[in-house]
Structure formats: C-alpha cells, structure tokens
C-alpha cells in the first residue's frame, strides 16, 4: 500500500510539533539544570522522580497553573502576540532540517525532512530572524523600561550577529554550491570531507553568532537577570512565559541542527570513507544526527556555566571588529583555494590541512608562551628564607 507523500508530510509535521517541545521540556531543560549543577559543584534537581527525570512534568504543571498576568498599561494584543511570534518561526524552521537519509517503511521511501527547499539555508536565516520580533514586541508591549531595554538589546544584537553568521555560511556555500540543506549533506558525502575541516573559521564564527542570536550566555544581554531583571520577559508569566522559553530552546535546537547539517555532515557517520570506521554505519543516520545535535546542546550548556556575560559594548566590538572582518577574510581565502586548485575537492583538502596546521602551531605557541610567562612569574617571587 502506498500512501500519498502529503499524508507522510502531515505525519512528520505533527511528529515534529509534538516531539520538539516535549524534548525541550523534558530532556534539554533537565539536562541543562543537572549538567550546570555538576559543573558548579552541586547536584542539581534530583527530587522529582528518580534522578529528577520528572522535573519537566513538575515545571509544566507549575507554568500552566500559574496566573496569567497582563500588566494594566500593557499593549494587550501585542503582549499576547509576542510569545506566539517567538515560538512559531522557530518551529517552522524545523521543516527544512534533514534529520536523516530517506527511510523505507513498507513500500514507501520516506525522507526524514518535511521539505527540501532549494533555498533551504536562506529560508532558515529568514524565518529564524522573525523570532526576534517576539522578543522586541514583548519587551515593548509590556510597558516596562527594563523589558524595553531588553527588547532593544535583542534587536541590536540580532542585527550585528546576523551579518557574520550569513558571511560564515557564504563560505560554506562556496564549497557546497547549493543552498538546499539535503544537497549540502550530499556534497559532504561526495567530497569525503565534512565541511568543518575546510570551514573551521566559518564554523567558529557561525557558532559564536548562533549563541548570540539565541540570546544564550555569554550573550544573554536581552534577559540579563542581574541587570535588567530578566529583560523582555519580566512581565510574562504562566503559559506565555513558557512560550518564550520554548522559543529560545527551539532556536537553540535549530542553530545546532544547522551547524550539524552544514559543518558536521548531517546524518553521515564520522569519516564515512575510512575503511576501519565502516562499522559505524550500523548506527542509523538519524541517530548520528541526533547525537551530534546533542553534542551542540551540551556545548551551549557548557558555555552557559563557564563564561560570564559580555558588556554591551564588548558584544558590539566582538561582532563588528572581529567576527565580520574575520569572516570576510575567510570567504576570500576559501574562494581563492577553490579557484586555484582544479577539481572540487583538492582545494578543500588543502584548505583543511592549512587551517588545522596553522591552528595547531598557533595553539602550541600560545601554550608555550603561557608556560614561559608562568615560569618567569614564579621566578620573580622571592624565595622563602631558610631559618
């Protein structure tokens, strides 16, 4: 029995919309709180259920039963609309993510993506930028000066970091010659190379900009608990607050998914063309994809528990003075490498070796300098006088 592709599309949409919020609420939030707890030398929530696995349920009950407050002088309609605007674009963007290679169920070949748009990457950038409207409008409509400041910060941040993010992805487009995410993964399979290797700099810039765009530490200036009393969502409670929360975490998932698809070979196993690692192919592609995404979510959590928040001028300086020039230079280098070497892959391979060589040498030099500086510092300390 063959079912129409439309039917499968409906199934996939429903699955995505149902599972992603559940994963956010039950897995990511709990993982974040427990991992952050461990990193801060404490245990984190472990009371609800064994090892705290039901914490998500408790949070859900709390958020849903809370009173839903709208401030008296708030712009009611916009105040209501803002959380929706934060969530819907994030969930929509999931449509173009390829979670795995096509799967056979009965006689049907089912691709594990809702839609393979030929401008997928552009669509993603466009749709995810809409999410910031939720934050700006939420901040403005609350009629609270801290919220407004949070919203404005978010707008400025997004404008500054959308540029390096786009430029970083441009250098990948030079390698993949396609905007379709499925095609990008296929290209990585064909070149025998994850685009992370020739695109190390691009990846770094993309991920930093991604962290900034999702308003996560160390770039969480829009909510900044200690300065703005959690900024744009000060006046939100209950389900509306939960929506903002969901939007932020779904945006995190999307940034991770795009990073995996574009730089880490999507559903491909690590080094698919090395004979010794063929046995990794036993694990289905979708599992590889989810594992990689999990790695990125872990990096997000790791960053959050490690780095202190940037000052706003530092944030702007990092974006405009460092990331944008570096990403432009990176595009130049990648373009030249592709032009100079014949064929599609030689240039990329050379680029990979050159980048990794330079980085290893630089890192070792810096490490050596650190060691020497430490030795000099210790030598400068007067020795204790023996009695």
């Amino acid at each position, binding site marked *: 029995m063959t079912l129409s592709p439309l039917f499968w599309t409906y199934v996939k949409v429903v699955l995505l919309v149902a599972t992603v919020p559940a994963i956010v609420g039950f897995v990511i939030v709990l993982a974040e709180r427990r991992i952050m707890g*461990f990193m801060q030398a404490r245990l984190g929530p472990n009371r609800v259920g064994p090892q705290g696995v039901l914490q998500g349920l408790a949070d859900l009950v709390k958020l849903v039963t809370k009173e839903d407050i709208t401030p008296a002088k708030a712009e009611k309609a916009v105040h209501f609309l803002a959380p929706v605007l934060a969530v819907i674009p994030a969930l929509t963007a999931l449509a173009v993510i390829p979670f795995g290679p096509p799967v056979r169920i009965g006689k049907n070949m089912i691709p594990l993506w809702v839609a393979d748009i030929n401008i997928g990457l552009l669509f993603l950038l466009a749709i995810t930028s809409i999410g910031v409207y939720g934050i700006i409008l939420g901040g403005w409509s609350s009629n609270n000066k801290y919220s407004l400041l949070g919203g404005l910060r978010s707008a400025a941040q997004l404008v500054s970091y959308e540029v390096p993010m786009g430029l970083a992805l441009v250098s990948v487009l030079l390698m993949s010659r396609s905007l379709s995410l499925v095609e990008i993964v296929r290209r990585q399979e064909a070149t025998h190379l994850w685009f992370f290797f020739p695109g190390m700099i691009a990846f770094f810039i993309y991920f930093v900009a991604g962290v900034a765009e999702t308003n996560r530490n160390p770039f969480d200036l829009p909510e900044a608990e200690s300065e703005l009393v959690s900024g744009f969502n000060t006046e939100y409670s209950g389900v509306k607050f939960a929506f903002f929360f969901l939007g932020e975490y779904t945006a995190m998932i999307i940034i991770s998914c795009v990073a995996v698809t574009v730089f880490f070979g999507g559903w491909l196993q690590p080094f698919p063309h090395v004979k010794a690692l063929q046995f990794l192919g036993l694990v289905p592609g979708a599992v590889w994809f989810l594992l990689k995404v999990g790695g990125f979510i872990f990096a997000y959590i790791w960053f959050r528990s490690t780095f202190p928040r940037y000052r706003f001028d530092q944030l702007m300086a990092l974006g405009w003075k460092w990331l944008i020039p570096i990403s432009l230079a990176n595009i130049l280098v990648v373009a030249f490498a592709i032009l100079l070497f014949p064929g599609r892959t030689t240039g990329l391979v050379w680029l990979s070796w050159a980048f990794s060589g330079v980085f290893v040498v630089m890192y070792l030099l810096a490490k050596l300098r650190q060691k020497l500086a430490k030795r000099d510092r210790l030598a400068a300390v007067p020795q204790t006088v023996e009695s």
Partner: protein
Amino acid sequence: MALKKWLDKLTLLDLFDGLSVTGRHLFKKKVTIEYPEQKKLPSDRFRGMFRLDEERCIKCTLCAIECPINIIYIDWHNEKNEAGKNEKVLDRFDVDLKRCMFCQLCEEACPTVPKSIWLTTKTYEMAAYDRNESLYLDIRKLTDWREAPNVKPFTVVERG
C-alpha cells in the same frame, strides 16, 4: 608584546582554560549532603537545643541572672528533707526558646561540674509549627531530651 597578546586572543587560550575548569568539575565527586536522607553531624562545640539535669542543678539561678535577655525563668521554694535540712525544690524552670540567641552564657555561668544546663546537644532540627507552644520549654521538655535521636551524651570540657 602586542603580537603575544594577539596570539592569546586568536587562539582563545583563556576561554579554553575556563572550559577545562568547568569540564573537570562535571566529573568531580559532589560533596552535597542530601538533607532528609543524610544528615550532617555537628562539631562538638555546636550549640543546639538546651538540656537540663534536674538532679545536678543546685537552683542557684546564676544562669537566669547571666542570661542577657532574661528568658530563663526559675522559681523555687525550701522544703525539709528526711535529714531535716532545708532543700531547694524547683517550682518552675522555663526557657523561652523563641527569643534565645544560643550565646551559651547560661552554660558558662553554671557552677556545677559537670554543668547542669548545656547546649552542646548536636540538635538542630528545632523547626516548629507554633512558636508559643513548641518553643517555650518547661522543665518537662528540658529534661526529656534523652529520647531525641540527635542528642549525644554531654561531654565534659575541661577548662584550665
């Protein structure tokens, strides 16, 4: 000099150092004591709930006099014992615990050896639902601490 600074900046050395610190802590053993299941045993000098030994007490009221906020109430009267001598008998020995600041001055003032009133009972679970009933100790409550789970026997601290 400037080159060295750039080298550090571009290789993100400090950021990696920070990440390695938090990464190491992820796997370290945690020292958290999970309270209702595990309990911390206080040190020997920890000042907890009062205890009174009525037989050792000589009813001198020095503890009540020494108390800075006068929350120890002692009444006594004389009675003839079998030998025909006057003996002080307690009518009342109350401590208004809800105002107590656990300064231990009453214990220091006590002239008996060992002390007849002391705070080093290693008790700290003193939360109560009503202040006036639970935190007002009469003679019965003060002497009835032997059954309490956390109470350890009194250790005499020798003072030179």
